[in-house]
């Protein structure tokens, strides 16, 4: 199943490779935010909030017992953060908890988004990933 994660990451890397500069890559990232599986407004609560971001970001994780996979939904009130959340969800969605737990995000380097993983960054990308893995550990 990790192959699926890697495949999705590869797919994203290939898509980003079509863009020649950082500006168009950011524009694409922002567009990706529109495709995020949306979280219901009533789920935008502290329980699903990712803390440590300047903007507000929520990610909800549900375990589909029949398929044994995690389903993620999310949103943010900042477009770049929402794009990053969409990116991570696209990789991890409908994956088994054990796969989510082990997923790595080295591909962010290849698409020029590595800088967002730094703990200095206030978009909470690292916190998002940590919280998604934490939810996965509850079902692993």
């Amino acid at each position: 199943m990790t192959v699926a994660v890697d495949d999705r990451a590869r797919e994203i890397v290939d898509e980003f490779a079509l863009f020649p500069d950082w500006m168009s890559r950011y524009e694409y990232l922002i567009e990706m935010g529109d495709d995020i599986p949306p979280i219901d407004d009533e789920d935008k609560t502290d329980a699903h909030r990712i803390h440590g971001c300047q903007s507000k970001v929520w990610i909800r994780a549900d375990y589909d017992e029949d398929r044994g996979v995690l389903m993620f939904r999310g949103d943010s009130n900042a477009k770049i953060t929402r794009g990053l959340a969409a990116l991570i969800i696209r990789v991890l969605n409908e994956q088994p908890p054990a796969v989510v737990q082990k997923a790595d995000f080295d591909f962010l380097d290849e698409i020029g988004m590595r800088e967002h993983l730094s703990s200095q960054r206030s978009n909470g990308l690292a916190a998002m990933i940590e919280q998604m893995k934490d939810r996965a550990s509850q079902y692993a």
Partner: protein
Amino acid sequence: MPTTAPTPATFDVDRVRQDFPALRQEVYEDTPLVYLDNAATSQKPESVIDRLNRYYRSENSNVHRGVHRLSQNATDAYEEAREAVRSYINAAATEQVIFTGGTTESINLVANTYGQRLEAGDEIVITEMEHHANIVPWQMLRDTRGIRLKVVPISDDGVLDLDALNDALTDRTRLVSVVHISNALGTVNPVEDIVDLAHDRGIPVLVDGAQSVPHGPIDVQRIGADFYCFSGHKMCGPTGIGVLYGRREMLESLPPYQGGGDMIEEVTFEKTTYADLPHRLEAGTPNIADAIALGTAARYMEELDPEAVGTHEADLLAYATERVRSIDGLRVIGTAPNKASVLSMAFEDLHPYDVGTILDRLGIAVRTGHHCTQPLMQRLGLPGTLRASFAFYNTRDDADALVDALETATTMLR
């Protein structure tokens, strides 16, 4: 398109910029740095960097008790730095300049010493535009000693309500603690008037001067506050060093802050007598190197023509403010008549974080968020702002670069 009219002042900003090596770099490929985060920290001139280097290379030793030559040299340099700072703020005597870790520690020092004399029901008056460093230490006193915290409101344009401040003063008020220049809005508060109001009723005043000292020398005697706090790193000095200035009688009345070496006169297991000011409030080995380099920074800043600096910074603020107003959906936050060179902005439909991220990619260093003033952001109903803050070494070209980047960012994000 940007117009690059010459700055109407004699201030030679191009020459001054040569003093700051960090301003000459690219932060991304082919993307030179435009540093507009000066309210967070300033860049350092070569002389300050060299001074730190020289101290560690050839003078490093502990101060005040050494019999050897190196220690005497370090002590002289440390005390000369105190004199340089004294001169910069026009304190009456060097003993009134206490070195601390920064504004935050200076305020905490006052809260932990002056605060000891406060009783349940006593009141401290602050304002809606305070930095967390001038809120939280008093809240901690509220929790431990049962004092009350009163908050003076501001108007929508960021002006302090002096009538409300006057009304907030009662016979239980023990301190007015107010920011000189708001880090989030740029508002310059009339601290001399505030001191007069409070002193008329015998109430001491603490002024948070973190954002004032970066704009040139100040005169603590004219301001008349009982305490004046600031950080070195915002005025071209190193991080980790700051100052608590106090009126002499006030400082002399304070109990010791931390116990340890350097702050004592004589110690036996039965009894300790304390050293005189300023050492009584500087326990332990001080931050010698950074204090010495702060002295260099103070001298550097003092040598700039304050009037030319003021004119130059006012021009930058006026120019940048006028230019950013042309950007669709952008609102300037903080429009007090008397403002320092801080330009806070909010966007109708965009999160400041998004705009700041794009600006960063374009080489523009600004700050986004609540600027450690969460209650102020709540008061203004904003999630935060995007803040560009100008120093004397910034130029109209920097303002133009900011405006161009804001145009690019808002186009990309809409």
